[in-house]
Structure formats: C-alpha cells, structure tokens
C-alpha cells in the first residue's frame, strides 16, 4: 500500500519536473517581453518585471511595427510552407515506391537519405554561397526553398515509408472488386489511410524549415528573403552594445506562436511521426 503511494508520489513529482523544465524558458521569455525597454538598459534582474518596470503590450507593438521583423515573418511563413509542400510531395512519391514496389537501388536511396540527414550543414555553406551568387539564387526565396527541401526530404521519406508500410493496400483491390473505379478506390480508400502520415511528415518538415538558421544567415543578405531566426539574431536595435532584450523577447514569442499552435493541435501525430521511422525502420 505504501509502495503504491510512493510510486504515485514519484510519478506526480516527475510530471511537475517535466512541466517545470519544459515550460520555464517559455514562461521566462514571455515575462521578459513585458519588461520595459528602459528598465532593461539600466538592468532589471529577476524573473518577473519589477513594480513600475512593466511595459504592457508596448514591446509587441514595437516588434510588429518593425518593417524588418514583419518581412521576416512573411518570408519564414512563405518559404517554410512552399518547401514543406514540395518536399512532402516528392517524398510521398519516393516513400510509396520504397514501401510498395520492388526495385533495385531501394537500399541506396534510404542510405543516401540517412547520410544527408547527418550531413554537417555548415560545410555546404561556402560552395553554396558561391554557387547561388553565380546563378542569381542568392538572397531569394527559391535560394532557401531548395536547400530546405534537400534537408527535409530524408526525414519526410523515412517517416512516410514507415507509415506507408502499415497501410493495408489490399483494401484498394477489395474496393475495386466491389465495383469502385480505380480512381474511386484510390480517393476513397487509400487517401484517407495515407493522409495522417503525409500530414505528420508535413508538420516535421515545417518545423525543420521554420527552425533553420545556418542557411538563413548565410544565403541571404537583406529582408528580401531573410527568415525569422536570422532576422532575430541580427536585430541589434539602436544601441549595438546593449541588445534590446525585451523587444527581442517579444519578437521571439511571436515567432513561437505558430509552433505552439501546431503542437497543441497535433501533438499525437507529431509524436507518432518522430518515433515511427526510428524504431521500426
């Protein structure tokens, strides 16, 4: 009896520890974003804003009114979405072939994907920087979309082929036997079965593109294509020796909102996607 109680207590403590560890920095950056800019310059230590040093929504307004920041958010959303859609479309074709067809070079494709997933991104920056300038892709949306696709394809292919292997493909023939046309069988039977996997791969791909920093800082030079992580890191404000911490925090919170929404809506799918390829593969 006491042992049960102990276990329960331990579990409860574990839950609290996880919540504390995972959410503390998020709470902190939100709290920081409500400290006033003047108090930051003077030094305003402590977790919460001290009395009289709160800024209300001022930092959020200032961040949002910043042209550079707004452009960066727009760039990030556009580039990440386009890269995600293209990458998942190509990965779906490849994963279908890997899961269902028997062809030579299947192992090679999976090995190439794995090798690229482990590739040190920085070692490509030099040659790509040079090449992109030569073909006028430097500082453009496609200039970032292409590398994002290359580096998200491995993840998408691995996740999707793990999902596709689980689909009972015989159901397609069964539907056809029951009188469905092959298009109907595909649309009514296979698409609903495959959609969750495709969707999960899309979320993971989007996270990767949204998070990228190395390509973002080295393949862009202006707000024409600079994504949000790069923009945040280059944002120094009026005084380069005193970074506008609370303004940056407000920007960081805005950049985190899409991620939190996606996580809240799709946590189950994300966990399934993260673990599917790794353990069964």
């Amino acid at each position: 009896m006491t042992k049960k109680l102990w276990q329960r207590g331990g579990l409860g403590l574990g839950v609290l520890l996880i919540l504390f560890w995972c959410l503390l920095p998020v709470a902190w950056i939100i709290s920081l974003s409500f400290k006033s800019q003047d108090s930051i310059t003077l030094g305003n230590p402590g977790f919460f804003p001290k009395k009289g040093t709160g800024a209300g929504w001022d930092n959020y307004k200032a961040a949002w009114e910043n042209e550079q920041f707004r452009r960066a958010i727009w760039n990030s959303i556009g580039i990440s979405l386009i890269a995600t859609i293209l990458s998942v479309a190509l990965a779906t074709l490849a994963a279908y072939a890997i899961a269902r067809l028997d062809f030579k070079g299947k192992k090679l494709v999976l090995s190439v994907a794995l090798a690229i997933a482990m590739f040190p991104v920085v070692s490509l920056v030099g040659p790509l920087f040079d090449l992109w300038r030569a073909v006028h892709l430097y500082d453009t949306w496609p200039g970032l979309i292409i590398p994002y696709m290359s580096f998200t394809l491995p993840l998408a292919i691995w996740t999707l082929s793990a999902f596709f292997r689980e689909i009972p493909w015989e159901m397609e023939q069964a539907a056809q036997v029951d009188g469905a046309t092959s298009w109907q069988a595909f649309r009514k039977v296979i698409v609903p079965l495959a959609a969750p996997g495709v969707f999960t791969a899309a979320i993971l791909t989007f996270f990767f593109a949204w998070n990228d920093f190395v390509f973002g800082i080295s393949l862009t030079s202006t707000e024409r294509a600079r994504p949000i992580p790069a923009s945040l890191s280059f944002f120094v404000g009026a005084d380069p020796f005193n970074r506008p911490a609370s303004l940056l925090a407000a920007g960081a919170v805005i950049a985190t909102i899409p991620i939190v929404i996606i996580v809240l809506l799709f946590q189950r799918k994300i966990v399934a996607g993260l673990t599917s390829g790794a353990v069964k593969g």
Partner: protein
Amino acid sequence: MTTVTAPTPARRRAMISDRARAENSLGRKLVAPAVIVMLIVTAFPMIRALWLSVYDYSLTAPDDKKFVGLDNYLTALTDPLFWRDTGVTVLIMVVTVAVELVIGFLFAMVMHRLVFARGLIRTSILVPYGIITVVSGFAWQFAFSQNNGFINSWIPGIADNYNWFGHPASSLIAIMVSEIWKTTPFMSLLLLAGLAQVSEDMIEAAKVDGATWWQRLYKVILPNMQAAIMVAVLFRALDAYRIFDNIFVMTAGAQNTESISFLTYRQVIEQFSLGMGSALSVLLFLSVLLVAFVLVKAFRVDLAQARQEV
C-alpha cells in the same frame, strides 16, 4: 476440362520479369525527383568544396586564385585553433548527449507509467522540440545574464553579479544548458518508443524471481531497448557535433566557445576565404563521418556482447 492452355513455364517467367522490370522502372522514376533534389544541394557543393579546398581562393581577391595543393589542410591541421575548436565540439557533444540520455530516460519512464495528463505532458515536451533554436539561445542567454536574468538569484551560492559569459567554462555551461533543453524532448520520445517495446511480462517475471529495481533496469529494461538507445544516441551525437546556432547567438564564439562548425562559417562568410573554408568544410564532413563510424562500431561491439550474454 478447360480448353485454355496454361502458359508454358518459359513464357510465364518472361511475363514475371516483364512485370518486375516495369515495377523496377516505375520505382526508379518515383524516387528520382527526391534523389535529384537531395543531391543538388549536397553532392555537387561537396565536390566543389573538395576542388576549392586545394586553392588559395578568397572572394575579396578572386583574381589571385592559385593552386596550393594540400596547404590549406596542413595549415588547418597544424593550427592549435582547429584542435581547440574540435576539443570544444567533442566536449559539448559528449556532455550534452550524456546528460540528455539521463534526463530523457527519466522523462520517458514518467511518460511510460503515466495514466493521466498524457496530452498535457506530450504538448509541453514538444514545445522545446518545436521552438526555434535561436529563440532558445536568446531565452537562456538572457536568463543567465547578470543584468536582466534570473539564474543568479535562483541558484544559491552564486553572486548576483556573476558574469556567466565572462569565463570559458561558465559560458560553455550556458550553451550546453540551452542545447540540452532544446533537444531532450527528441531523446525522450525515442526512448519512450523503445520502452514501449520492452515486454511487461519479462519485467514481471524478473520481479517474481526477486530482482531489485536496479537489477530489473540494468538486466531487463535497458538491454531490451538497446536499439532505441542506439538510434537516439547516434542521431543526437551527430546533431550535437554540428552545434552552431546556440553558439552564434549566445557567445558568438567568445571565451573560447567556438565549435568547428562556427570556425568553418567564420572562414567562409566573414572572412570570404573560400579556399581555406572549403578545406575546413571537408575536414568537418570527415570528422562527422568519423564520429558516425566510431559510434556504429562501438554499438556493434555492445550488441555482440549483449547477444553473447543472452
């Protein structure tokens, strides 16, 4: 009696191989676009890096490009800076992966046993996973800051004005905390999937036989989730070896916290010396391969040992 004659064996074989050939070519057509896109941005630049690495070539003086053979490599490998940065990178990799393995395993144990609040825990554990690394770097940098942070006042025995970013060791600790925070969720979710594959019956049987909690952990649970641990460590170690974002944001390489990725970046983008930068790129790539090779080898040995034990 049927009048239809069965196809001769030879004919059937031809049909099968026709189908196999069609399947083969369809399969290749379907994977081709993905493979091409993956290679455009990796294989071609890597070959170019190999080629550029034997030149003295700087973007500030593109006309002075000249062939220097392996000089760039020699310069890099004899420079103490290269070895210091490699040391820093390896240190970060070993410490973060070890700490993440422990924390990640504890989290996985809690989540595995949990019957309530599963959605809440899953959501909160995915927040660090999804958050931008740059944001994580900023959050922790400001948290450790002596002027505007809270860490100094929360940890007993540390002066309120202690400057974490004024010393190499404490700067590295701050960087590693941010890295560990951001990537532990990935580790714990992989370990959770591994834990789910350990059969409860075996644990129960060990319990009946009088095994203590530690014995059950070491003799039953851990050996049975070795595959998951291997995958998690391999992925995380290779990822940690490439550490760049956190260092860029938190210290920009000050206080000897530069990683090998950061050194490469600095050569190429800040100094515009593509020749030297390319040589460093090749060395970085080779060292990642080496780490992967060592890990895979080490795990194989472990796997073989485990099999002998059983």
